[in-house]
């Protein structure tokens, strides 16, 4: 038995891997990563820096006040925020203003971050795992399994995704959610069975996308020499699929994953906006915009800030996806 001892290599600074070098060259990737990191940080810090209970938070004396930062340049707003006793103006008391129940819009938007990130990531990961598994098996084995799953994805892709999600989300009753939905609700501390339903609906709609994508990738890989060699060396088909085919088909799936977190975030917010996602008083961004529809003509800040949060999160994930594509799939970028 020979023992290979590591040769004492001269101590050099570890070279950054090719991926991190490529990623650092990709401007959209860097910007996206920073935006996403900021939102993740905000979500983690929210309960620590500003504990919040959505159900008990209301203050009728302060309803629909404009953003207090405007007090710095706007006299009228300054008057609104002038303390009657001390005469001081606190421009930072409600920087984004308050909503119809006198709730601080900043706090609600801030606490909505965790909800949107969780929902976007969980629904995408679910769709990615299920869709990829089915797609890889369909692509590798072909035959009747491929035909049936192909037909199913044809049918599902024929629906406008938001309509399919609406249909799915309306199946489950809110008062008596099935065990699975209450379990997911507890597991991810989402606080609303309807939000879980909306999340699963958005996830379901994305599954055919991953089925198609992974199937196409596997079809290309199946005839490659290393896959053939694995079979020739006596590996079982299952081993070949999970050891050789799957790891080599992950790049486009990861890129698609980042991009579909963006889509999922928008769609869950859209369901919330239509009233079939998260329910008030949960500070979900889409639901907040839906609430603001009665007031935004006079109090636009109730609509602008939650929307801005959705926009920035989605922008972050889209940029990150573009950056990952530059890194993992350089041939596809011009």
């Amino acid at each position: 038995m020979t023992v290979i001892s590591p040769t004492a290599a001269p101590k050099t600074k570890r070279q950054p891997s090719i991926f991190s070098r490529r990623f650092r060259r990709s401007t959209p990737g860097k910007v996206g990563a920073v935006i996403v990191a900021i939102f993740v940080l905000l979500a983690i810090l929210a309960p620590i820096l500003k504990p919040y209970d959505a159900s008990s938070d209301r203050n009728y004396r302060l309803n629909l006040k404009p953003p207090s930062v405007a007090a710095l340049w706007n006299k009228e707003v300054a008057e609104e925020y002038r303390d009657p006793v001390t005469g001081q103006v606190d421009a930072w008391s409600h920087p984004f203003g308050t909503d119809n129940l006198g709730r601080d819009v900043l706090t609600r938007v801030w606490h909505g971050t965790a909800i949107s990130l969780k929902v976007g990531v969980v629904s995408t990961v679910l769709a990615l795992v299920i869709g990829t598994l089915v797609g890889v098996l369909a692509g590798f084995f072909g035959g009747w399994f491929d035909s049936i799953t192909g037909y199913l994805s044809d049918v599902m892709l024929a629906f406008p995704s938001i309509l399919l999600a609406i249909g799915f989300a309306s199946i489950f009753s809110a008062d008596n959610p099935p065990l699975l939905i209450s379990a997911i609700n507890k597991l991810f501390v989402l606080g609303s069975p309807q939000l879980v339903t909306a999340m699963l609906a958005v996830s379901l709609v994305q599954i055919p996308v991953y089925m198609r994508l992974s199937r196409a990738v596997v079809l290309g890989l199946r005839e490659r020499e290393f896959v053939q060699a694995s079979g020739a060396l006596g590996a079982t088909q299952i081993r070949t699929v999970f050891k050789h085919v799957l790891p080599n088909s992950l790049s486009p799936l990861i890129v698609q994953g980042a991009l579909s977190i963006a889509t999922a975030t928008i769609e869950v917010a859209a369901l919330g906006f239509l009233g079939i996602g998260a329910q008030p008083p949960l500070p979900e961004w889409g639901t907040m915009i839906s609430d603001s529809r009665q007031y935004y003509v006079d109090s636009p800040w109730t609509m602008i800030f939650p929307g801005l949060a959705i926009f920035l999160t989605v922008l972050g994930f889209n940029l990150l996806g573009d950056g990952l594509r530059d890194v993992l799939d350089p041939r596809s970028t011009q």
Partner: protein
Amino acid sequence: MGSYLIRRILRTLLVMLGISLLVFVFVRSIPGDPATAMLGERATPQAVKNLRTQLGLDKPWFFNPANPLDAQYPKYVAALAKGDLGSGIKSNIPVRDELGSRFPATAELSLAALFFALAIGLPAGILAALRRNSIWDNLATTISLVGVSMPVFWLGLLLSYFFAVKLGWLPPSARLGNESTLQPITGFYVLDGLLRGKPADAWDALRHLILPAIALGSIPLAIIARITRSSLLDVLGQDYVRTARAKGLSQRTITLKHALRNALLPVVTVIGLQAGALLGGAVLTETIFSWPGIGSWVYEAISQRDYPIIQGGVIFAALVVSVTNLLVDLSYASLDPRIQYR
């Protein structure tokens, strides 16, 4: 071509069957009994039972051992094939009739959105590809990134706040002003105004159309600009473009005659795929702008649990998407003669 056409149409029909099955199961899985919903909570059990019999809800779903065709799904498909989608629970108007009267509104909005997306997206994509890495390229890339990241419903509210509420340039909702007396002919109000010889009405309808069309068109615009850019860049790198340049053709001729036509194939595919996105986005846009189309109708039906309307609207949307995809597939041959159907 002939056999391909037949196979492709058969596949579309098969997909339609799958759609009907999925919607059938969905609607029957929604909690609550339609008969109770129609009669109200105070109805006697006997009345509910009678109505269930009348509606055929007491029959088995798929298969009746006594009489194979006397089950809910076969009857439902047979009715669908005749175009019978039932009637709304609240209004009792046949879904098909209301679908027909609301479709022009959605079609007008979707076409206007698509027109807006093409009018800005195509030139932006072309310019970005021709002047690669210039300020125009960066601008087009940024616009398309912002477009795909913008939630449609938020953009709609922003547009309506700034251009309708704040500036008062455009109306915030509906298809026509209150004092308008336009008599519809086609249901496309801008066209109807011109056909009736009343340019003022056409102008009124157009002003109502602008904001919702921009909101609905933002995502297709972004995607069209992106695809046009990358597709044109791809084609401009091809050998035959270099040959054309070596022949001494002007850049203009090369772009217009040689590159653009070939670059448009993926763009056409994407436009076809946008049919679904437009119908889905219409639910949100029409809700915000009180646009009396299919989207806002389905949205109201959801909040009132009016199942025949949800069912009819969703099936209709899926039908439009399937047929559009079919047409896109068939249009390839005329755009690219190298493609042969077998």
